[in-house]
């Protein structure tokens, strides 16, 4: 199979949004799910969280940050180009899609996104917005130029808060500081926090919300090969038990996740990936 890139938008120097023609996936997709992408015949299979989808127009959006050889290759493609494989939707949808309207209407959600994590947060916030549910959203990044999808998010969220490490825009500091400010100083009440971003950020968000006593969901971006439960590369410890992020997740109770193990396991192939990335960079003359 091959899948056509319909649109491409550069969000930051190393983050690209792509709209991929994939009508079957678009019809089945739900918030919280991901796809597996293989760029070309020699490519590896990588999981990417779905950033948006349109069942009627038959497309799925992904947002990819260049972190290695494969993402570099993917982000170099242009509209009209095709990728070899695009499969999904995988993983369990976010828990809230199964909750009753009454339950949802009585809930106040806070989404805490870090960096490229704003992309998978978007379809969740959009879904809730379309169902008339209120959401607050925090997007954090190192500086202003690395914040993505803020305009899109503003359309869907009741309140959008920004945080930058250098204070170039919004709250000056980490997202955890902003969470604290909203809850402790501004008196905001949240029934559930959903956090998506770098593993280390989710670890600290979870620690903060545990202190504040707010139930929290984290979406784990682990290593994967097939994405269907076959390999177990995505093993995570949650509440002392081992789960496969691809089929049991990717969303888990953040207060039960062993983030230190998850961070360590993400680095399992780092040396080899760096080597491949170096080779690939030479090839692409970047």
């Amino acid at each position, binding site marked *: 199979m091959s899948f056509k890139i319909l649109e491409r938008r550069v969000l930051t120097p190393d983050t690209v949004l792509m709209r991929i023609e994939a009508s079957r996936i678009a019809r089945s997709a739900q918030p919280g799910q991901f796809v597996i992408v293989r760029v070309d015949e020699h490519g590896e299979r990588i999981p990417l969280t779905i950033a948006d989808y349109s069942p009627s127009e038959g497309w799925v959006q992904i947002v990819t940050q260049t972190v290695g050889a494969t993402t570099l290759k993917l982000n170099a493609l242009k509209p009209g180009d095709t990728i070899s494989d695009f499969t999904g939707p*995988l993983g369990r949808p976010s828990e809230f899609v199964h909750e009753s309207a009454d339950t949802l209407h009585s809930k106040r959600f806070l989404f805490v996104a870090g960096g490229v994590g704003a992309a998978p947060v978007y379809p969740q916030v959009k879904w809730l917005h379309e169902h008339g549910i209120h959401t607050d959203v925090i997007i954090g990044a190192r500086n202003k130029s690395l914040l993505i999808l803020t305009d899109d998010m503003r359309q869907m969220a009741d309140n959008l808060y920004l945080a930058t490490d250098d204070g170039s825009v919004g709250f000056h500091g980490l997202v955890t500081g902003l969470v604290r400010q909203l809850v402790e100083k501004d008196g905001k009440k949240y029934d559930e926090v959903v956090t998506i971003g770098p593993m280390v950020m989710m670890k600290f968000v979870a620690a903060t919300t545990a202190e504040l006593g707010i139930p929290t969901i984290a979406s784990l971006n682990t290593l994967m*090969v097939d994405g269907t439960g076959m390999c177990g590369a995505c093993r995570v410890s949650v509440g002392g038990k081992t789960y496969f992020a691809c089929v049991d997740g990717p969303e888990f109770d953040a207060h039960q996740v062993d983030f230190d193990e998850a961070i360590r396991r993400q680095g399992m192939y780092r040396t080899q990936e760096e080597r*491949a990335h170096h080779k690939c960079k030479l090839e692409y003359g970047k």
Partner: protein
Amino acid sequence: MANKIPRLNAREQDPAVRATNFEEVSYGFTAEEAQAEASRCLNCRNKPCVAQCPVSIQIPEFISEVLQGNFATAASIIARDSLLPSVCGRVCPQESQCEGACVLGIKGEPVNIGKLERYVGDWALEAAALGISATEADHPSKPAPNGHRVAIVGSGPAGLTCASDLAQMGYEVTIFEALHRPGGVLVYGIPEFRLPKERIVAREIAKIEALGVHIETDIIIGRTLTIDQLLDPPAQGGEGFDAVFVGSGAGLPYFMGIPGENLNGVVSANEFLTRANLMRAFDECYDTPIFVGAHTVVVGGGNVAMDAVRTAARLGSKASIVYRRSEAELPARVEEVHHAREEGIDFQLLTNPVEILGDERGWVRAVRCVRMELCEADSSGRRSPVEIAGSEFEIECESVIMALGTSPNPLIASTTDGLDTNRRGCLIADEAGSTTRAGVFAGGDAVTGAATVILAMGAGRRAARAIDQYVRTKSAR
């Protein structure tokens, strides 16, 4: 009966050389060797070999054609019962099936049926590649379409067999494959050095596509489309298939549940082999990474364990098998164990891991094991292993591969109403392949749990007959 001619074994790559490459181990027979080995068959009247073949290949019949040098006829005879002779000749456990029943084996050595089947299968593939009509299966007289459509889930041995049988009955067949390449366990599980992917598997699959079978990759049934969507009429937004066959295999790896299993360096055999076989991580032109340390320990004693340990050795690691029973109980094919030993694989038998130990960075540094002994056979006749107290010791290693078996993926059952599974997660199906849901049939590892290629093929074939009957009955109403 006796036979003075010694059994002929196919020539093999030198163990020291092959342990460093991914080329096929066995060269297979030449025409002369095949004919010489064929001359050993007694052509006995009872044909115990046929009775032991799960798909009842007419073994003496094809062997006598090999003896005459009529390879095309031999291929046609096999094609009546099996469409993957080049695969089965390589991966079937012949010693417990056809060859295990061979009369010559009573006093001497059985006919080398596996290598003869492989020779005939490969001969037909070569002939087809050269455009020579070798068997009817290569140039089938396509039957008139009967107007009915069947969906097959999974392109492994069960699905391929079911698809090809149905196509030859006039059905329009679509196979849905979750991965990016068709073949199932033939491509992700069994290594290149045992079953070449391009030369053999891809060609065998092309043969099936030539029958008109359509293969759609990258479609995960249970996620991209559900079984209900496959069966629903187009008016309701469905795909409108008359029936579905589920041959989704047993792909979920077991882990031991011992401490240290989530350390960096511990992987399932499925992950390790998928990286090597499907993703071709051993070839530096491919992007997928794979990790082996200076020493790799593979836990398990089946074919998958042998495949993993031999792959690890080929990637440059010292490689050991750790298995809790003794040599006699190793579930792997005798040939695989023999090949592994020749390639310098270390066997730690009657040994069981109790913990995986890590270094300060969370990477594997050793496996703590305990020695085992087999106790007296219980009522089931099986001798179970028990720990020898105080026998704990450590094996230093940097990578550990768990090859403890697999179970069926729950995805399809959990997304399909009325499709029941048993305690082990296997789909419940009768001998013919009918499941608890009308119009849904199943066979192969998805029903039995992890078994063999040939058993899955047999199940696919029986299900094809049951599907044909179901569709006829339904449309007669």
